[in-house]
């Protein structure tokens, strides 16, 4: 598998640890995890195991951000390496995150 997701639930916080690459072939793996966040207050996406992300992957993260409003949780991103950070910054992902009261930790 090119992408694995580890789910860890602590009370009202869910941590999703993403390992491998998020691209067009793997977004269908991560999306179901995000869909089942009802009742969660905080969802943390941990990217420390991320190898590669493409624009479809960014699209998935945007979906997560939009979902956070719908399902009323706070989305936090962590473990972003420098290269991914550059990409996120370029496309303006952080501004969107901020607009939806999410944060980077």
């Amino acid at each position: 598998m090119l992408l694995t997701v580890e789910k860890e639930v602590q009370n009202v916080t869910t941590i999703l640890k993403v390992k491998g690459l998020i691209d067009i072939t793997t977004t269908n793996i991560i999306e179901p995890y995000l869909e089942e966040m009802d009742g969660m207050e905080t969802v943390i996406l941990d990217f420390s195991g991320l190898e590669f992300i493409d624009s479809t992957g960014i699209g998935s993260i945007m979906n997560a951000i939009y979902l956070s409003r719908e399902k009323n949780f706070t989305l936090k991103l962590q473990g972003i390496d420098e290269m991914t950070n550059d990409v996120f910054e370029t496309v303006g992902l952080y501004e969107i995150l901020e607009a939806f009261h999410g944060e980077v930790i």
Partner: protein
Amino acid sequence: MYKDGMTYVHQKNSDGLTIMDKTLKREINLARNIQSQLLNGKTPVFDGGEVSGSSVPARLIGGDYYDFYPLVNGKIRIVIGDVMGKGIPAAMLMILTRGAFRSAAETTKSPADTLTSMNQALYADLRTLKSFVTLLCADWDPETSTLTYANAGHNLPLYIKGKEQVVQELPKIKGIMVGGLPNQVYNNHSIQLHDKDTVFFYTDGIIEAQNHNKEQYKLERLVQTLMENKQKCVGDIEKCVMESIEKFTEGAPQRDDITMVLLKISDQKAEITSLNSPLMK
């Protein structure tokens, strides 16, 4: 069995392909032709410089987009963009983006306004489709030799200074990708270009091009290639970049489309009057 043009018939032929596969393939080919005609349309010709652009899709059809639009005031509006995703969905959104650019370019005063207008026009659709487009829009004014640009989440173009012999990114300017948030205000930034300067707009498919060993082409190689060929005309630089990528990837299948647009300033400054607004070739 009920047959009409809308129904694909599952029936293996001798090659092992279903008829549906063949029909689909033909239609994708048609779509690719349409897209390539739209992309490789007219390139404006004007005094004081030249532009050129090209795009190679990773699959049969791609989601990258570039365009030129001559404005009534004699400027050329250039846009380059990368639609999220690949293949047919991305190609469809690319056509949508092109329409939004064409109508916005016609009516808006500056690149920033064009991006704002495009975001206003595309936001709802892109949200519904859970997609987005990164765009970089620039106005080249042959009269004053200034390049004014605005950015919606795209990577910054490379600026090859003809005189100083250096390659660097254009001064940074931020902006959220089109389809990210509604009611976005984009900002313009201007730089003065000089004789023999080249601006290289591209999508990240170039620097992320991979060879069989999963190594990336990287910005360093691109800069190197541009430096080596900077004195050439835009068509030749384009060809050299493409050749360099091909040589590096050795025909390995690519994950992303490869697109570039070049603008080069040439010294033959003709007198600019209202009459020599750009002509279409």
